[in-house]
């Protein structure tokens, strides 16, 4: 019995020494996974995922504290990309976080805008320009459609309009399957 204890503890101690050594010697800095996850998120910064922005959500996923189906702006495509990266089964968007909607862009009704700058403070990507007391405008190309500027506006002059369809940006739709031949 003594032999047993000695034999095994020797083994364990040797092992512990190596591990202690390895832990210090091969410390991995940062988590490259977060960057890779973040790169897949739409960067709308809307907070619908329940985190204050895309990067925090990415960190939460990497840390195992959030599921991959919480980003409505990214929708199915983002979920699939995340599932692929993390080797998990894709799942439908969590309805608690919202629904996947077509892309929108904020439009400020310039007649009503009082120039209070509240929307500028709310916009996470600085897509609104204008000085205090002067009317503001949304730079459409830079607006991510996150909706965050809408609630703060005291005169309700901001509308979210669907991104306009045009021929250059048009793409062929996913083929709908005739009811009978549906292969899903």
């Amino acid at each position, binding site marked *: 019995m003594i032999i047993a204890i000695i034999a095994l503890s020797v083994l364990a101690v040797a092992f512990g020494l190596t591990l202690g050594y390895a832990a210090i010697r091969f410390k991995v800095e940062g988590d490259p996974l977060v960057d890779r996850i973040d790169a897949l998120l*739409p960067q709308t910064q809307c*907070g619908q995922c329940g985190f204050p922005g895309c990067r925090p959500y990415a960190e939460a996923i990497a840390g195992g504290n959030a599921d991959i189906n919480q980003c409505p702006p990214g929708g199915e495509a983002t979920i699939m990309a995340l599932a692929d990266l993390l080797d998990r089964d894709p799942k439908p968007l969590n309805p608690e976080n919202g629904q996947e*909607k077509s892309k929108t862009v904020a439009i400020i009704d310039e007649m009503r805008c009082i120039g209070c700058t509240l929307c500028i403070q709310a916009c996470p990507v600085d897509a609104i320009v204008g000085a205090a007391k002067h009317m503001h405008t949304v730079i459409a190309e830079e607006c*991510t459609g996150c909706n965050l500027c809408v609630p703060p506006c005291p005169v309700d002059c901001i509308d979210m309009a669907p991104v306009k369809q045009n*021929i250059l940006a048009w*793409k062929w739709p996913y083929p709908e399957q005739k009811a009978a031949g549906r292969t899903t």
Partner: protein
Amino acid sequence: MIGAIRRQLWTFHGGVHPVQHKHVSTQSPIRRPRLPQRIVLPLHQHIGEPAEVVVKVGDHVLKGQMIAHATGYVSAPVHASTSGKVVDIGEAPIPHPSGLSASCIVIEPDGEDRWIEHSPVENYREIAPSALRNIIREAGIVGLGGAGFPSYIKLNPGHHKMVKTLVLNGVECEPFITCDDMLMRERADMIRGGIEIIRHALQAEECLIAIEDNKTAAFESMRKAVAGMDKVEVVQVPTLYPQGSEKQLVRVLTGKEVPRDGLCLNVGVVCVNVGTAAAVHRAIHLGEPLISRIVTITGGAVGQPCNLEVLIGTPMNELLSQCDGDISRIERMIMGGPMMGFALHRSDLPVIKTTNCVLAATVTDLPPARPVMPCIRCGACADACPVNLLPQQLYWHSKTKDLDKVQEYDLFDCIECGACSYVCPSNIPLVQYFRYAKGDIWTREREKEKSELARKRHESRQKRLEREKAEREAKRQQKKSALDATGMAEKGQEEAAAALQRAETRRDAALREAEKRRGEGWQEGTKDDASRTRESERDSN
């Protein structure tokens, strides 16, 4: 063929033999239709940047007057196709698979059809190729074979590339379409004129005119027209769809394969459509810009199928009614042929530069799609594909939106010829899946760029806020130390605490607000159709 040495021809993989239906529209000669009530000229009838309007509403324009000029290298101007008044500049429905509208210039013809002054080139051999190209550019000539690529670019071989062969594409492999056939029968001399000019511009050694062996009249007519020209040969190629596609045609004629992502130019060939050559002839020798083209009006719903020389901008329904067309019998109306053309959403759309055919098909011409069955991987599609792709695999991966995998299977080499869908026993709309996947890849790339931009802006904003905060903090510290110095620290601390308190309440409120929005705001949005269909599918599973 008599006396002609049979030229060695090569083959390409695959191809199909759809029923031709060509004879119906070759019974009568090319006619000119009546002047229409309205001419609608889209600014974007070609590949590249849309043209830019140079007239105003209310202006009176002459036939052949440039009303929109080219912007950028790949672009083409638009000319008034008759004289009249500009009555509108704005969105109007155009022939496009999306059924969407786009910017157009609308002209009300004055009935005089008065030309702007012609300025033909006296002797094209004496002017530099670049000047020649500029004339062609200003004449608004784009490829009439279907793609609408500005032709002057093609006529510029660049500094180092040698063009050995000019290929004239008179293959016209699509069923129903006969505009090139009729053009070759009736206006071979114009094509000959075009060939001379283009050859001169390119300094091409030889010229091959390819015609499928189901168009013997055109073959004979072209042979007569080019007789006596040095190193010009009319080549009869076996009928096989999609031989008209330039890469496949170059392979058949020269045995060379245009490399992927490459142009015919890479193998020393330039390929132009016979109609384009005729248009070049007109531009140089007659000084006429591209304002009309030959359009095949055919299909079961047309009483007298024929070819018309149509002014660009003429509404198609007017053409149909002049050929005894019965719009009520139309099952599908297609611009182009049944293999590559697209279905139109309405019948009053204008003819544009790339409209080679208006097919008013009845149910018997084009029976409605049969129900789609699952792919049985039979490989018929792969056998038919002229590019030697594996459509069944492309389909499998586009269906699951696996965009990396489709690219591994060379999605972007697909020329969307439809041969695969044509032979598929399961009636799968393969080409549509491929188009969808291509579009999706492009969109995702665009979105990726956009989100990258958003991230950068967000980060810089975050940094700015931090910096501002730090600055404020520094200021506060300064103030505080100043206060300390004057023995008023207590008040300062109180103030700071109060500020902190305020900040906290603000933050809490913001959080609550966010919470609330997450609770309600996001769900009220109406469900779009896509998600609804998905749900109903789910239900039935």
